């Protein structure tokens, strides 16, 4: 019977490889930024272009950076989740308005509510490239020193918030205390 051992092992290995492979989302690209300081930027604020938002404004506490645009359907989907997080949690959300029409973006926040502590306008998408953004909505979790802890691609939901973000936020806060 020993002659069957190797084919069965090889078959089993292939099953495992394909099983894992099929379960993966091919559109998910892991970010090389995780564990590294968030890229530097200086962007005019959506509410007042004379004030410049920079990565230094994000430091001091755990924060979120959310990439959004009015042309992005997923951003509309997650907007209520962002509002709930902004209302209920002690985590500021910074927006990065990506390749958007500024008037439309301002109107969006007026109509739907503004979950953001501040939003920077990235009209030509240059900062988004530095952040490795390839599809809105994307949400980065930063620790108090501005290091990227986690990145979520796709609309945020309360389930994802509870399962992926809250444990990491707790851990980050415990480490700094």
């Amino acid at each position, binding site marked *: 019977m020993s002659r069957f051992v190797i084919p069965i092992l090889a078959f089993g290995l292939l099953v495992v490889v394909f099983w894992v492979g099929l379960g993966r989302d*091919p559109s998910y*690209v892991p970010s*090389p930024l995780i564990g590294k300081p968030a890229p530097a930027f200086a962007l005019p604020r959506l509410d007042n272009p004379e004030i410049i938002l920079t990565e230094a404004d994000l430091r001091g506490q755990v924060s979120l950076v959310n990439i959004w645009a009015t042309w992005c359907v997923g951003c509309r989907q997650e907007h209520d989740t962002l509002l709930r997080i902004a209302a209920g949690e002690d985590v500021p959300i910074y927006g990065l308005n990506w390749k958007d029409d500024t008037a439309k973006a301002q109107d969006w926040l007026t109509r739907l509510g503004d979950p953001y502590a501040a939003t920077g306008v990235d009209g030509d*998408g*240059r900062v988004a*490239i530095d952040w490795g953004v*390839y*599809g809105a909505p994307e949400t980065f979790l930063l620790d108090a020193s501005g290091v990227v802890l986690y990145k979520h691609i796709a609309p945020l939901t309360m389930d994802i918030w509870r399962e992926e973000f809250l444990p990491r936020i707790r851990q980050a806060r415990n480490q700094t205390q």
Partner: protein
Amino acid sequence: MNRSAICGWVILAMAVPAFAIDSDEPLADPQQQALYETLTAEVRCLVCQNQTVGDSTAPLAADLRREIRAMVEAGQDEAEIKTFLTERYGDFVLYRPRYTGPAAVLWATPVVLLILGGIVLWRILRRRASLPVPAHDDVSEGGGA
């Protein structure tokens, strides 16, 4: 009209005009233009993953072409530009993975499989060679192993 002429017209009618995605002016320096073309043909557009940034109409691809163009014009070489891209988007952005890191497994797998296959083949042939030759010669040709 003879048959080959009709064929010719049918084939011509099927030809679709090719529209250039990248309609920007070529770079002044032909060497820089060549580098730009090499890079845009090797960098993946992450929105439409089976296209290069040179082939894709996605806005992100246009942004990446613009960044690559600016870096080429600034005199950066291929390695510097690829490092810029992989620092932001990971190795996945390169259509041709590097030879180091986890991608090394990818490059080594065919060689390893070829060697394993060779070993298996060699062992089977050796076993066959040591089998006694059939005593009867009425085996029909192509009768299998």
